[in-house]
């Protein structure tokens, strides 16, 4: 049992740190959820990619550095500690790319990944539907077989980034008569600029269009944009959920950096007593999440898996993030009310944490049933 990174990982850390020190913008970019900010973040992806820092965990042939999960954790620590911008390609990198590596064809990988790595194509996810939030099996949007491909119709919602993104990926019901709701689904990529797609941006609490509704009316997608076998979409989508995804959805580096920023803010404001406990707990919580990730990464590197433990991670980071940002606003007092304050957008973003990527209520059910073995309720 040890906590010492190998020399190669430390060399990698030093290289990343040096590069970031020379490239991270001196001032924060405009909000990612604005047209201007989206473009600035896209340019930042290109800058990262130019020196092969945008997709460090990918193989070199696709623009990466073949970093294993431990080295990825190191990169993320440095990335967030340097105050680097949020990642506009997060959805593609975190959800679509792992799926392509596991289920895509070589042709798909060659076609899709390089432009994702540079930010030339930004991907949005299209999972949820109005009647299917935490209950994804209730999907109703459909894919109908057409010559050489499929026609997609229906409505998707809460499509993050879709207001400004280029393409999207999601699940559609291709076998309406499937005996179980998880069967008969198609995992497919499609173009948001297609004339059959209407994108209606939705403002989040602060009014910024952080997600959109998508209306699809017979949008043709060729067979080459289907990932995995038709009808197997659920399995394709879920197969990456059980491994690294539980670890890489939100990296510890992010919270370590945020906790340190909070601590600095606290000291700068004279270390007021009323948030002392929460500042200390944010530091400890971020450290706990970091160490837990090291343990999970160690297990993955030995061929193990991360299953329902991902549900514990989800609850932990989302609540840590929210308390951390609430504490910052409490510290700031009146100043914390402004929409353009240094912590405000982070607070609004953190408010969504317990809701998306599987609401925390569902995650707690999973922890209780799969990790503790409690009887399934009616839910």
């Amino acid at each position, binding site marked *: 049992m040890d906590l010492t990174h190998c020399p190669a990982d430390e060399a990698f850390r030093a290289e990343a740190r040096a590069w970031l020190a020379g490239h991270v913008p001196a001032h924060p970019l405009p909000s990612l959820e604005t047209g201007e900010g989206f473009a600035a973040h896209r340019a930042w992806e290109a800058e990262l990619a130019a020196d092969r820092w945008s997709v460090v965990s990918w193989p070199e042939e696709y623009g990466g550095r073949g970093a294993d999960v431990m080295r990825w954790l190191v990169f993320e620590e440095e990335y967030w500690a340097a105050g680097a911008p949020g990642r506009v390609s997060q959805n593609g990198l975190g959800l679509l790319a792992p799926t392509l590596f596991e289920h895509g064809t070589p042709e798909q990988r060659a076609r899709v990944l390089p432009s994702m790595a540079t930010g030339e194509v930004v991907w949005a996810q299209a999972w949820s539907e109005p009647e299917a939030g935490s209950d994804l099996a209730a999907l109703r949007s459909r894919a109908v077989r057409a010559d050489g491909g499929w026609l997609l119709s229906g409505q998707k919602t809460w499509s993050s980034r879709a207001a400004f993104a280029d393409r999207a990926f999601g699940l559609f019901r291709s076998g309406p008569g499937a005996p179980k709701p998880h069967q008969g689904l198609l995992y497919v990529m499609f173009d948001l600029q297609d004339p059959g797609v209407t994108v209606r941006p*939705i403002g989040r609490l602060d*009014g910024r269009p952080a997600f959109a509704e998508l209306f699809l009316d017979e949008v043709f997608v060729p067979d080459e944009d289907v990932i995995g076998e038709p009808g197997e979409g659920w399995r394709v989508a879920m197969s990456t959920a059980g491994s690294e995804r539980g670890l890489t959805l939100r990296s510890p580096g992010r919270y370590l950096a945020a906790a340190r920023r909070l601590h600095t803010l606290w000291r700068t404001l004279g270390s007021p007593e009323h948030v002392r406990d929460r500042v200390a707990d944010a530091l400890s919580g971020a450290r706990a999440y970091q160490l837990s990730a090291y343990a999970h990464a160690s297990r993955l590197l030995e061929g193990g898996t991360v299953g329902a433990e991902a549900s514990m991670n989800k609850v932990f980071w989302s609540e840590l993030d929210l308390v951390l940002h609430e504490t910052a606003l409490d510290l700031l007092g009146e100043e914390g009310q402004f929409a*353009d304050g240094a912590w405000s957008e982070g607070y609004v973003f953190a408010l*969504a944490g317990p809701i998306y990527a599987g609401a925390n209520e569902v995650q707690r059910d999973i922890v209780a049933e799969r990790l503790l073995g409690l009887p399934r309720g009616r839910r």
Partner: protein
Amino acid sequence: MRFLPTAEQRAFAASLDAMLTAAGTPSAVRSWAAGDHTAGRALWSRLADAGVFALAVPESCAGVGPLPVELAVAFVELGRHAVPGPLVETVLAAALLAGDPRRPDPAAELLSALASGRAMATVGAPYALDGDAADVVLALRDGEVWRAPGARDARPCLDRARRLTTPLPGGELLLPRTPPAALGWARLATAAQAIGVGAALLDRTVAHVGRRVQFGVPIGSFQAVKHRLADAKIALEFARPLLFGAALTMDAADVAAAKGAACEAAYSTARTALQLHGAIGYTAECDLSLWLTKARALRTAWGAPHECRAAVLAAALATDPPHH
């Protein structure tokens, strides 16, 4: 001892509720947030006609007050309907001006304008809420009360219907000393507003979870959902007597306890409301957002929770000497 609202107080609340329901405040809130104050001013006039702004103004200055219980009754309804504008600040301005017994001429004149609804006031300490909309901008400076010649730098807040401004320098000295009890009126009104905000959030969420089906059943039948809502209900129900107790005594510690409890209850109800609405509740287009963001803003305004707790402890120190 009869610690229940009178029939008149209940009727006052019901009439405001009916008036605001008919007025459809959400659209007024949205246009206010967009910088168009027309609908908000119209609401303001109707509230003034109902006597809301006269409650903190003494009869000697064209008011009907001071009537803190009625003020609390009214502000619960204002919060329930998310009425926009410097409501608390106008009450505070009245309490400031009424609080100095010598009451110089311009103050008396202003008081009557506030009571009648002719003037909308705000108070900067340091920021002034909605100074771009207010007719009167007071500024608390080193213990003195000034009338500033306006306000600048309207900045949008997380509650999009609130814009914090900075009073312009200079102006006219109104009172050489800030009347110490005036802050209590701001806290009381804020606490009442928070109770109303919390009640609206709870009502809307109860309705939502009864309708919203996931996994084949209304999510309101899930025990985890029920218990979160039960906790919100309990927190609000035990903040309410603190509010009316404070209105009756206007004791600084009672007011602080009410402000703290009401705002914590409203904010935790907001967190519950957001969580149980899920993504739809996180959108600006869902009306829920009007109350969600207000719950957070009220928590900070006129005494954050730790400041309220300090007031509670200071009072306990005075009344409860330690035994050694």
